[in-house]
């Protein structure tokens, strides 16, 4: 989780990722942020993110993103 927060902080240092639950819906992360986030995640956690995972629900909070990574790691 800490590794993920670090990646997220790189994108927007001023966001409190521990509490934010509207990262996408609140337009904190735009589509290009998500795309670079996903490529960092793929690199760091060695997971494959595919089209069906690319939905706002999976990116609205750090916890949701973390859950997605866990799920993808289990599928490997």
């Amino acid at each position, binding site marked *: 989780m800490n590794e993920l927060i670090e990646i997220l*902080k*790189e*994108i*927007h*240092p*001023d966001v409190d990722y521990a509490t934010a639950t509207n990262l*996408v819906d609140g337009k904190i992360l*735009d*589509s*290009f942020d*998500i*795309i*670079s986030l996903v490529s960092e995640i793929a690199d760091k956690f060695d997971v494959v*993110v*595919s*089209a*069906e*995972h*690319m*939905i*706002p629900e999976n*990116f609205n909070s750090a916890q949701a993103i973390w859950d997605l990574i866990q799920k993808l790691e289990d599928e490997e």
Partner: protein
Amino acid sequence: MHNHVLQGFKKTVEQFPDKAAFCGENSVLTFRELDRAIDSVGTFILRQGVKKSPVVVYMEKSPEEVAAFFGIIRAGCYYVPIDAEMPQVRIHLILENVCAPLLICDASTAEKATELGFSGKIVEYADIVSGKLSGQEDLIDEKALQEVFDASIDTDPLYVVFTSGSTGVPKGVVGCHRAVNDYIDQLSEVLGFSSETVFGNQTPLYLDACFKELFPTMRYGATTYFVPKTLFMQPLKLVQYLNAHEINTICWVVSALTIISTFGTFKTEVPKYLHTIAFGSEVFPIKQFKLWRQALPNATFTNLYGPTEGTGMCCYYRVDRTFEEGEAIPIGRPFENTDIILLDEEDHEVTKESGEQGEICIRGTSLTLGYMNNPEKTSESFTRNPLQTHWPEWIYRTGDIGRYNERGELMFVSRKDFQIKHMGHRIELGEIEVNAQMIEGITGAACIYDKEKGKIVLFYSGDKEEADMKVILKDSLPRYMVPNVTRKLDRIPLTSNGKTDRVSLSAMLK
């Protein structure tokens, strides 16, 4: 013959009165509705006594915003689009530059508009077209509009769109009827637009990139959908959207296209109505390009190239062969009625056959009029043609370096200066540096583009933390210009003659 951009529009309205012209997330305008809205806005402006002036449009991306643009043009004025997501500092610079007497906003921007310190009159779009300000019966003065139309000439300005400026101040490019009409003629022929065309627009309305959809839609009676921005992180939904609206033509930046291909979207869903795909502004990674061609073997793919100063695009290459990874897709050849010349450092012509490099310079009707209230920058890049000195003839020096390949196709090589393309946006690294240097406590700043990772890296010296720099810069720079990485150094390395040592900065990226 009149060469006005709205010349054929009334005919389009007669032909397709109830067809949807522009479809946004929250509203749709048919051609009849659009026509009425344009004439209402035009009449309103005339009655304000505003003539041949810039009029600012500060609205959410919507069909109504398009009606405001064309209403301003109808009144013989020219529109200056500013975006709801632009930072205040940038909006101020633009307003200061154009000195407009009138600003049109909508409900979503009305409150912010009053906080801009705008010196002219502010009016809400809905109040103009609803007749709240004029009375319903008296919305349109056809006679007055016709008089303005008849008096217009095709070198009159249409718009001022702002692009990144290396000195920290954005530059306003002024475009005219003649150049836009010429551009739309050539582009429509190359891409085959007609009344059957259904566009899915991706690019913002505050730049000239959206002309590819706006003007052909008005001219041919096509339909444009404004694809919701949020779909560009949901590739599957994005393709479903294209299919639901039977969208057959897209002119997108490369990064928007690769969002679809990267995530294996085509395995689940293919945009089956698409037959015309144009792209540009960035290098298309061949691996991603191949996925697109595999998914849509019968579609045409066209690479477009051109700076805002040359009105939209000026060169094209219709992909006619396969490319291997590592190869670059050519920018091809100029549109008809446009000439490209390559000039070396001594202003001599670089011939096609030599295969040597030179600066890409544009000659012809497609040239814009220059930069708004900026004679210095205008004379730097809009210069006399050094190859023809007998009478004044203007060229635009793009700052792009190009060369012809062995097939005689124009290839993009690099930039002469520190302008980059990042996520489809044209950015002067100098503008970021100037904004960073203006921050209190910052003693030096230098920006590098990490091409491999596609990241803007800001090196700086001073007493601010790395994370704080990004946060502060968000207040003065558009989102796409905020550095992805900030790195604090004791001092910015300099070369022996006192310039920023970019070579050693680039080495630090490794």
